[in-house]
């Protein structure tokens, strides 16, 4: 019994992805955009802190007898401009990575 001869036509090959964008790239771009938006929303909701990120807040207190003002630190995360910048860069990198590492379309003659 003879083996079938290899196909010499392209009729059974998948279509070339010349004009289409792979689904995973679209997903990553949308995820990257949402990531940037989420970071911005979190930063804005936490008080638009244009200073450095803080992980404790100084709560001012007053000793009434002496009039001395002092602070008590309370653990609280307040994202700052560094958090916003880093988060935005990560989101942009995620979305931006989809524009790289593309396989050159292989067209079978």
């Amino acid at each position: 019994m003879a083996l079938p001869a290899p196909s010499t036509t392209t009729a059974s090959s998948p279509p070339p992805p010349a004009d289409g964008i792979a689904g995973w790239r679209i997903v990553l771009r949308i995820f990257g955009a949402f990531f940037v938006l989420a970071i911005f929303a979190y930063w804005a909701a936490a008080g638009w802190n244009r200073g450095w990120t803080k992980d404790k807040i100084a709560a001012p207190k007053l000793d009434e007898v002496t009039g001395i003002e002092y602070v008590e630190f309370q653990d609280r995360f307040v994202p700052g401009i560094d958090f916003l910048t880093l988060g935005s860069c990560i989101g942009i990198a995620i979305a931006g990575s989809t524009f790289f590492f593309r396989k050159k379309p292989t067209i079978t003659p």
Partner: protein
Amino acid sequence: MKNILTSALLALGLAGSLTATPISFDFKDPKGVNNVQFKLDAIVEAISGHANGITGIVSFDPDAPEATTGKIIVAANTMTVSNTMMTQHLRSDQWLDVAANPEITFELGKLSNVKTTDVPDGKRTTADVTGKLTIKGVTKEITTPVKITYLPDALEKRTKPGNKGDLLVVRAEFTVTRKDFGIKPGQMEDKVSDEIGLYVAIVGTAPKS
């Protein structure tokens, strides 16, 4: 008779003031309000923080404030800012090296330009204090304005009834430079200012037995 009595009372008062002894105030405050604030201008926002590990003894005579002596010690490892990573940098050998220099001290030398006024609860003295400030193992003599408020019999107001004693509140505000104390001298001045603003607000207690 009346004149004799008045004279006797005056003499007693004078004798009392002549024999007045300085009161020793302990600045390890049980309520933990003593603090030194520090502030440096920096990019993005000023770096500000606090140190609250304060101890020391000051000898103060309400009738002779110019004779005040004493020493205030700040535990360098209590210097804290609002960001843990910055706090670690601040305490590291790059900046204050608190492991090798655990104490920041001020040794009071003399008071000049002393002015005392009565306030509702006691006496307030303003003066220029000269003393030796030691930061990161470097000692410099500095002179800075100081405000000292003596509050007799005020201890029980902030502790518990029957706890007799006096309070001494000391406030000072002054500026030092990083280069004077070997804190990254001449480095990163475009990012963190050379000048460090310091604001001291501390209270000492002198219980009466």
